[in-house]
C-alpha cells in the first residue's frame, strides 16, 4: 500500500509516544470525572433534592447538556457527510475529527437523560410502558439509530488507516496491535475491498444526513409537542437542526485548532480550512439569528398571556442578562467577527498612523459598553417609563460594540485563525446558554400555575451537584476524544493521500 512520505509521520507521532503533559492532562480530567462521580453518588443517595430541580423547573442544566451535546454531535455527521456527498475536496483532513465528535458527543449526551432521572432504576419503564405516540420514545429510537449509524460512519473510512497502523506500528504494545489487527478486518486494499468500502461509505454518507436531521428534530419535538409557552412552535424542528449544525461547526473548529497546535498538523489543517468552515459558521449564524427573530416576533405578536410571561422573563426579567449576552455576544458579535475581515479593507497605512488613538478609543468604547450593558437600572421593565432609556441603551451598546469591532479589525485581519476560533468559542457558549434559555423560562411559566407554592419550588438555581456533573460530562467528552486521538490517526490518512496521488 501507500507507504511513503514523511508528511504522514506527523500523523503517527501521537500514537507512538506520550508526553508528561499528556499524562498530566489525563490526570486532571480523571480528577474532574471522579469529583462528578462523587456528586452523582450524592444525588443517587439523597435523590434529586440535592439538585435545584423542583416542581416547576423539572429540567435544568442536565437537559441543557443533553440538547447541547446532541447538537454538537451534528458536527460530524452532517458536516462531514454533506461535504462528502457534495464532493468538497477540502473536507478530507476534517472528516475524521468531526465524525469522532459525533460519536462521543452522543455517548455523553444520551446518558444526561438518565442522570436527570431521580430513579434511574426505572429506566426500563420507558420501554415497557412507553407509548409510541410519545416524542420521548421517538427520541429513544432516533438517538439509538443515530449512534449506530454514526459509529459505522466513523468506522468505515477508518479501516484502511487501521490497516496502515497495523502494518506500520509494529513496535506498539500487544493490546494496541491486537486492536489494530482486529479492527482492520484483514484489509489489504484489494479491488474488492476498496469497492465494498466505497459503497458502504457512500451509502452511509447519504443515509446519515436524514437520520441526523431527524434526531435533532425529534429532540425539538420533545419540547414542541407540548402546549407550553415558548415550546409549542412549528419552527422548532428546523430551528434545532440549524442550531445543532451551527454549534457543531463551532465545535469542529475548536477541535481543529487544538489538534493543529498539539499534534503539529499545520501541513494538513491550513488557514484555508479555517476560512471555509468559518464561512459555513457565518452562514449558519445568520440563519440562526433569522430563526430566532422569527420565533420571538411571532410569539410577541400573539399576545398570549403565558407567552408574554416567558418573553418578559427573557427580555427584561430574570434571564435578561443571559439572554442578551447570548444574542449580542454569542450570535451578533461572532457574525461580525466572521464577516468583517472579509468585507472591510483597512489600508495598512491608516492602521499604523493611529497607534495611540486606537487603544484609547477602544477603552472608551469598552467603557460605554460596560456602563450601558451592566447599569442595573435598565434591567427592570418598570423603568420603561423613561421611554427613551431602553432605546438609548440598546443603541449605545450597539455603537460601542461596532466601535470595538472596528478598532479590532486590523488585529482580526492579522490573525484570521484566532479570530475564527474566538468566534466559535463564543458560539459554543451561546448555544449552551440558548438551550438553558429554551428550557428554564418556559418551566417558570406554566399555563396553570400552582398557587401558593414556596418560592424555591418555582425558581431554579443549579446546585454544586449539577455543576459538578456537568463539568464531569465535559471532562469525559474531552477524555474520550483525547484517548481516541491517541489510538487512531485523527486525520484520515488514505483519504488525504488519495487526493495527493
Amino acid at each position: 500500500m501507500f507507504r511513503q512520505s514523511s508528511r504522514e509521520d506527523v500523523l503517527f507521532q501521537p500514537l507512538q509516544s506520550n508526553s508528561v503533559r499528556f499524562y498530566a492532562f489525563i490526570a486532571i480530567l480523571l480528577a474532574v470525572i471522579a469529583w462528578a462521580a462523587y456528586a452523582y453518588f450524592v444525588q443517587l443517595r439523597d435523590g434529586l433534592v440535592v439538585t435545584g430541580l423542583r416542581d416547576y423547573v423539572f429540567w435544568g442544566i442536565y437537559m441543557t447538556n443533553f440538547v447541547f451535546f446532541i447538537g454538537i454531535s451534528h458536527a460530524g455527521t452532517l458536516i462531514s457527510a454533506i461535504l462528502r456527498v457534495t464532493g468538497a475536496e477540502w473536507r478530507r483532513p476534517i472528516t475524521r475529527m468531526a465524525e469522532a465528535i459525533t460519536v462521543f458527543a452522543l455517548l455523553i449526551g444520551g446518558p444526561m437523560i438518565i442522570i436527570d432521572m431521580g430513579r434511574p432504576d426505572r429506566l426500563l419503564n420507558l420501554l415497557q410502558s412507553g407509548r409510541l405516540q410519545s416524542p420521548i420514545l421517538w427520541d429513544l429510537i432516533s438517538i439509538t439509530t443515530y449512534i449506530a449509524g454514526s459509529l459505522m460512519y466513523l468506522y468505515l473510512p477508518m479501516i484502511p488507516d487501521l490497516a496502515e497502523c497495523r502494518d506500520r506500528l509494529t513496535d506498539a504494545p500487544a493490546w494496541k496491535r491486537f486492536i489494530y489487527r482486529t479492527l482492520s478486518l484483514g484489509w489489504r486494499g484489494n479491488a474488492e475491498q476498496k469497492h465494498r468500502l466505497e459503497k458502504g461509505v457512500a451509502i452511509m454518507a447519504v443515509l446519515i444526513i436524514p437520520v441526523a436531521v431527524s434526531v435533532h428534530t425529534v429532540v425539538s419535538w420533545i419540547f414542541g409537542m407540548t402546549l407550553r409557552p415558548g415550546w409549542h412552535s412549528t419552527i422548532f424542528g428546523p430551528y434545532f437542526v440549524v442550531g445543532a449544525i451551527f454549534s457543531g461547526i463551532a465545535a469542529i473548529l475548536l477541535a481543529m485548532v487544538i489538534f493543529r497546535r498539539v499534534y503539529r498538523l499545520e501541513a494538513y489543517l491550513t488557514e484555508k480550512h479555517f476560512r471555509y468552515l468559518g464561512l459555513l459558521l457565518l452562514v449558519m449564524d445568520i440563519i440562526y439569528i433569522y430563526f430566532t427573530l422569527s420565533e420571538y416576533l411571532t410569539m410577541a405578536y400573539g399576545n398570549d398571556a403565558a407567552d408574554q410571561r416567558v418573553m418578559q422573563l427573557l427580555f427584561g426579567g430574570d434571564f435578561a442578562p443571559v439572554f442578551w449576552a447570548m444574542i449580542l455576544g454569542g450570535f451578533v458579535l461572532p457574525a461580525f467577527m466572521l464577516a468583517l475581515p472579509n468585507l472591510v479593507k483597512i489600508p495598512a497605512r491608516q492602521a499604523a498612523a493611529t497607534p495611540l488613538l486606537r487603544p484609547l478609543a477602544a477603552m472608551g468604547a469598552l467603557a460605554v459598553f460596560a456602563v450601558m450593558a451592566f447599569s442595573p437600572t435598565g434591567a427592570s421593565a418598570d423603568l420603561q417609563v423613561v421611554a427613551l432609556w431602553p432605546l438609548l441603551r440598546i443603541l449605545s451598546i450597539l455603537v460601542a460594540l461596532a466601535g470595538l469591532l472596528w478598532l479590532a479589525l486590523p488585529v482580526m485581519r492579522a490573525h484570521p485563525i484566532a479570530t475564527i476560533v474566538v468566534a466559535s468559542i463564543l458560539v459554543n457558549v451561546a448555544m449552551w446558554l440558548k438551550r438553558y434559555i429554551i428550557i428554564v423560562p418556559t418551566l417558570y411559566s406554566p399555563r396553570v400555575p400552582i398557587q401558593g407554592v414556596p418560592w424555591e419550588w418555582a425558581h431554579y438555581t443549579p446546585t454544586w451537584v449539577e455543576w459538578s456533573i456537568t463539568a464531569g460530562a465535559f471532562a469525559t467528552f474531552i477524555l474520550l476524544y483525547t484517548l481516541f486521538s491517541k489510538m487512531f490517526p485523527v486525520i484520515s490518512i488514505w483519504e488525504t493521500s488519495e487526493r495527493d496521488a
Partner: protein
Amino acid sequence: MRWMIVVFLMALVILSVQPARADDPPGAKLFATYCAACHGAAGKGGAAPAIGSDAYLTANDNAAIAQATGDGVVAKGMPAWSKSKGGALTDDQIADIVAYLRALAQTTAPGPAVAPTPAQPARSSANAEYAQTRMTMTQSPNADGEMVLVATLEKFDGSPVSGMVVAFSRATTFGTVDLGTAKTDSRGNATLVMREQPERARYITATFKGAKTLGSSAAMLALEKPAVAISAGDLNTAGVRLSIDEEPLLAPEGSLITPNPPLLPTLLFGLVVLGVWSTYGYVVSQVVGIWKSGRDHQRENVLAPKARSA
C-alpha cells in the same frame, strides 16, 4: 423581575413579623424583631412553641421565661439571647420582652387561673370580645344554569358576621385554583356565582381567615351539576362567554394522541425505522465482505507465498 421577588420576600417577612406600633411597650418591638419569626406574632406560635399563649404563661413565671430566653435551647433551634451567652439582648431587654408576654396573658403571675372555655378562649386585647366563628355553605342553580354558592359566616351564638371577606377555592390535582372572594352581607352571606363547570375536582372550599377578634373557619361542598344544562341555544347574546369545553381532555378517536396509536402513521413510522436499519444491515454486510476478502487474501498468501514474491 428580581426586584419584584425581593419586594415579595420583604413583604412576607414584614407580614409575618407584624412590626409593633410606636405606642406599644418596648418589649413588643423587641419581640417583633427577634422572636416573632419563630414564635409567631404576639407569641401565638409558629415554628416554635406558643409562648404568648395563656397555657404557657400560666405555667411559667417571669424568671423562668427570662432564664429560658437568655440560655436558649440551642440543640432544638432556640438561640441563646443573653449577651453573656453571645446573644443580642441585654438582661433589661429580655425583661421588657417578658413583661410584654406577661401583658398578653393579663395574668400577673402563675397560679390557679380560671380555665378558659374551649369555645371562647379568653383573649387579652381590649374591648371587643374574641369569638369563634363557623361557616356553612349551600349551592343552588340560578336562572342561567350557573351554580350559586352561598357561604354563611356566624358566631357560635348564631349571630351573623357581616363585612368579612370569604375566599372561595377549588382543589385540583395541580394545586388550588382561586375562584374569587366575596364580602359577607348583613345576614353573614358571601355569594359567589360559579362561572365555570369543572368536570373533575369539584370540591369547593370557602375560607374565612379570621380577624382580630374572630376565629377562622371554613366550609367545603361538592359542586353539583346544575339541573339545567347549558347549551348554546339557551344563551342569549348578553350572556355569551367563552368557556372550556366540558371534556377538554378527550381527543377525538383516531387522532395522534389517543391511547392506541392509529394504524397508518404507526405503519409509516415503523417502515421508516425498518428501512434505515436494514440499510445499516446492508452496510454491515459490506463490512463482512471486506473481512472475508481479507481472509481469502491471507490464505492465498499462505498457500502461495512464492508466487507472490516472484
